[in-house]
């Protein structure tokens, strides 16, 4: 038999016996549900502290059983189906949302190879060469739940929430996908375990800081959390896409939202924060930190740091206006990511092709920039002062032989008919439109 492949080789996956696969899947499912319960408690306690309140503290020690009580209450409530609803889709939507949310953790690496009942296996359900694309794909399927819930409820608020969600998701998934690209370039792989293995020396969140920042922003947009929670903006849309839902169906949306938060936090941990590997000083002083079952601790700690950021954002920032939000996504996040990827790939290309180090490249880049600046400055000197800023000529409605609108700074001349109307003073001046603009004007 060949020597056992090291971590970071995809050959370590796909050999688990069936009982182990079932155990792993079940443990992941139960862990996600328990984490959801804990996260709701965590969020309510933290945001309460930020608002100088106590938060839930009556049910169980420190209020830890509050989510359980809420869950039981939800399960006992009536599930209402509106008369206008499209029944099949209305029932299907929460199932799609919750099921898709549960699927992402299948490819998240939680720890190194350990021994479970005598079988050597990595602490990860599975991995394959495109597992980060799998994460993106599952996220895009999960949005169907939200969009269909909005459509099938037969309510205007829900429909608006669903519409917002579909546009938001398409926009922010582009930025999210682009933030992954630099990581792929550095790791040389799209599999999560290989990306973790590539971060032994440096976290990609440090090496590729702009990508990390873009991911952090787009993950908030992707999970519909404040300040990007426009699909469920309670001030405008009651509760958005899940306005009409109640009881266990609503609980499934709630579960999906919190599991999605944990998912994106786990993806951020895996891609940018070194995955399950211990943070820098710990592994130096304690070599055993990255072996056995300990990495689960680091993994969970990193996830909760990011979940804290989620809560922090919610406690700090007001909701964006929808047009500002879309403008930010399309005109800031996506161009910045594209330029950043261009820089990273150019740098990788130069290093692969010429083998130069960062300092030499930067020096040459500086020289090139200086030359460009000098040449443009000289050209500017030769051209003389800017003479484009002259006043626009008088408005010619038939400039070039066709009816044209006025240019900036030009005004419509007051027509004879408009003057006549003013003198008759029948209509207020604001009602007078320039000639030819409205056909309804007599």
């Amino acid at each position: 038999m060949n020597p056992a492949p090291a971590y970071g080789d995809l050959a370590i996956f796909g050999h688990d016996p069936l009982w182990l696969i079932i155990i792993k899947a079940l443990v992941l499912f139960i862990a996600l549900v328990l984490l959801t319960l804990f996260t709701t408690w965590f969020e309510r306690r933290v945001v309460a502290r930020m608002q100088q309140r106590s938060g839930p503290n009556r049910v169980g020690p420190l209020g830890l059983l509050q989510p359980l009580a809420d869950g039981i209450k939800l399960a006992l409530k009536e599930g209402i189906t509106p008369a206008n609803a499209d029944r099949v889709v209305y029932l299907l939507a929460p199932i799609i949302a919750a099921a898709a949310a549960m699927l992402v953790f299948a490819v998240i690496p939680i720890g190194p190879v350990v021994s479970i009942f005598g079988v050597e296996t990595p602490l990860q359900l599975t991995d394959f060469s495109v597992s980060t694309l799998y994460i993106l794909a599952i996220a895009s399927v999960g949005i169907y739940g939200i969009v269909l819930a909005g459509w099938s409820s037969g309510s205007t608020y829900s429909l608006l929430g669903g519409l917002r969600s579909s546009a938001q998701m398409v926009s922010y998934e582009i930025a999210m996908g682009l933030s992954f690209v630099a990581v792929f370039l550095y790791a040389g792989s799209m599999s999560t375990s290989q990306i973790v293995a590539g971060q032994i020396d440096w976290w990609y969140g440090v090496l590729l800081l702009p990508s990390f920042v873009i991911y952090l922003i787009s993950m908030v947009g992707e999970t519909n959390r404040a300040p990007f929670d426009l699909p469920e903006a309670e001030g405008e849309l009651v509760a958005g896409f899940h306005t009409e839902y109640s009881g266990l169906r609503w609980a499934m949306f709630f579960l999906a939202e919190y599991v999605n938060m944990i998912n994106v936090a786990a993806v951020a941990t895996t891609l940018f924060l070194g995955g399950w590997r211990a943070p820098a000083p710990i592994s130096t002083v304690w070599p055993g930190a990255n072996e056995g079952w300990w990495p689960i601790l680091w993994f969970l700690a990193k996830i909760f740091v990011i979940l804290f950021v989620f809560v922090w954002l919610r406690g700090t920032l007001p909701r964006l206006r929808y047009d500002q939000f879309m403008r930010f996504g399309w005109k800031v996040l996506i161009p910045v990511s594209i330029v950043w990827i261009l820089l990273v790939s150019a740098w990788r290309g130069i290093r692969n092709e010429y083998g130069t180090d960062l300092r030499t490249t930067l020096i040459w880049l500086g020289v090139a920039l200086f030359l460009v600046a000098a040449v443009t400055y000289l050209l500017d000197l030769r051209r003389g002062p800017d003479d484009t800023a002259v006043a626009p000529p008088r408005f010619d409605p038939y400039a070039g032989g066709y009816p044209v609108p006025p240019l900036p700074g030009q005004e419509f001349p007051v027509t004879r008919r408009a003057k006549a109307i003013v003198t008759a003073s029948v209509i207020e001046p604001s009602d007078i439109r320039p000639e030819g603009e409205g056909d309804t004007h007599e």
Partner: protein
Amino acid sequence: MTGLLAVVDLSGNTGEQVVFWVCAVVAVVGAVGMIASPKAVHSALFIASTMISLAVLYVAQSGPFLGMTQIVVYTGAVMMLFLFVLMLIGVDSTDSLVETIKGQRLAAVLIGLGFLGLLLVGFGSLTFSSAQGLDDANTIDGGNVEGIAHLIFGRYLLAFEATSALLITAALGAMMMAHRERHTPRKTQRELSELRVRSGEPQNLPGPGVYARHNAIGTPALLPDGNPTDRSVPESLRGVSTAAGDHHEDAAQINALAAGQSTIPSATPEDES
């Protein structure tokens, strides 16, 4: 070693069979449902399920990159845009089943049958050799993704670049068509608020009055001096609504009372009915 091979065999044959028979059925049902369902959103759902099952089949046939890209691009982006437009133009719009072009259905059936015949003849004359599998293609460059990258950015670079140029042209065309030139800079929030303050009336217009005699939107609000103001009435209702007339009458009565007249001019008791 034999145990390991058994596991591989299981996933290679039985597992693949199960995946195929599940996904193929879902894909065909989705395709038929997409044509058969009268609601456009249901059609979109059916075709999304078809796309997802096809993607799973690609993954099962050692093409993971293609499968995942199919879901991200088609199910995630293209179908989502479809849904967006469908939801935007009308929630309850169902296809009209009225035949607008004469003989359209007959022609469609005939052409469909002809196409089916062509397909049957074409596929009937095929001969299948034993399946090659993608294992060779997937190992030659070190993996599925690497193999595809090698082909796209190597042998088919020109076709790839030409396709991307075509797509960019289409995107630019769409932007051109949707673009509207602004001739004056957009007023900022600050400028708008300054304009509002300088207009002499920074506050909202008075809301509609809701009084004992009318609760229509055309009912004018009363100013502090008791006179009704038309500015609270929507522009299209000014001078149209009968409610305004009544209120002018009321105001006249009130003013008369306030002026010390004991008799009320033109009392209208039949209004009480």
